[in-house]
């Protein structure tokens, strides 16, 4: 399990035990890691098999690809500690601005190099599968972050508008509620009891919810009520997202909003 062992100038030193996952492919994040000691394996997961890309040691940087990616895409590969390792981690928020100021031509060159590397990495997936029929990931040590990620909910208090997904024709105006917490999987919606007279709010009912996140991004989701809690002054609904349509960039928007800072 990772441990915090110190912090200076926004840089933290984290200790990972052999087998710990440091970065997971598909996650959002632009934090940068530098290996201070130990060994880290970089790999991709393709069709359930691990495709090794590199083994990095002291002095190597991990995570710069997501930072340099202008599409702000997800992590393109995973990183796992091959032995007990110490890594320095920092959030490059100051560098975002500086990178934006970098010459356009230099950025074009870097973008192209990055696309080339991502293309070669995907090619490695194909090669690995053809060559060995793939290798199963090692059993036993599960990703220690997956559970926290899955249940990670950010406490918020934001106003939203919502209405039944299967609206009656000529539908009524949207209702107002407050989102009390939100995760990649769902949210908690608090409404005043009188809203319940406008439409049913039962487990299984589906609503369209519109809001603006504190970072200024619009969020439009469809969610189903899975639990109801009556509280003084309001009713809280545990809601599960039906789907996060990626073509609206919803996953990215939410992923970045939920990213630990």
């Amino acid at each position: 399990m990772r441990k915090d062992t110190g912090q200076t100038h926004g840089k933290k030193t984290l200790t990972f035990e052999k087998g710990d996952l440091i970065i997971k492919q598909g996650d959002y994040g632009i934090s940068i890691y530098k290996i201070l000691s130990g060994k880290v394996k970089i790999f991709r997961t393709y069709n359930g098999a691990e495709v090794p890309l590199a083994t990095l040691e002291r002095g190597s940087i991990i995570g710069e690809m997501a930072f340099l990616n202008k599409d702000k895409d997800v992590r393109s590969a995973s990183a796992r500690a091959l032995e007990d390792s110490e890594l320095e981690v920092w959030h490059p928020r100051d560098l975002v601005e500086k990178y934006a100021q970098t010459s356009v031509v230099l950025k074009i060159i870097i973008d192209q190099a990055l696309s080339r590397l991502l293309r070669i990495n995907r090619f490695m997936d194909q090669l690995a599968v053809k060559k060995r029929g793939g290798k199963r990931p090692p059993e036993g040590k599960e990703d220690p972050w997956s559970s926290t990620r899955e249940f990670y909910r950010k406490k918020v208090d934001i106003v939203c508008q919502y209405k039944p997904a299967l609206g009656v024709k000529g539908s009524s105006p949207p209702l107002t509620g407050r989102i009390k917490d939100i995760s990649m999987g769902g949210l908690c919606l608090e409404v005043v009891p009188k809203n319940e007279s406008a439409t049913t709010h039962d487990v299984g009912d589906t609503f369209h919810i519109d809001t603006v996140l504190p970072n200024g991004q619009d969020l439009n989701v469809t969610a189903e009520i899975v639990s109801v809690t009556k509280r003084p002054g309001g009713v809280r609904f545990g809601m599960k997202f039906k789907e996060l349509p990626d073509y609206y960039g919803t996953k990215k928007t939410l992923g970045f909003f939920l990213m630990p800072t």
Partner: protein
Amino acid sequence: MHPALHSYIVEETTYSDSDVIIEEGSKGSWIYVILQGAAKVKKRTAKGMITIDTLREGEVFGEMVFLEGGKSPRSASIIAAEGKVKVGLLDTQKLIDDYEAVPSELRTLIGSLMFKLRNTTSKVCSIIVAK
């Protein structure tokens, strides 16, 4: 091709099919862009030359050495393909000025990207050869 690249072109050269534009292992840190046609990225292996990529109009090449600090040899050969290829040489001085304006922490990240590109390219080659 991105218009910003045009203002950096200081020289244009046309190569015939199969001409060597950059030779693997040679010295040099110039960066080029393909203006017309295509070129193959090839590496020497125990089983002969293998093609690892094809570059087309608007694609820049030769950037690895420059962005790593200019010391390493060329990691691959660039060979003119599919007939004539017109290539533009980018202004080295402008690129140096641009690069020197980049804060050192950012340069480290860019250098790391180049390191990975170089390593992964070699690894792909060794996997192909081992097959």
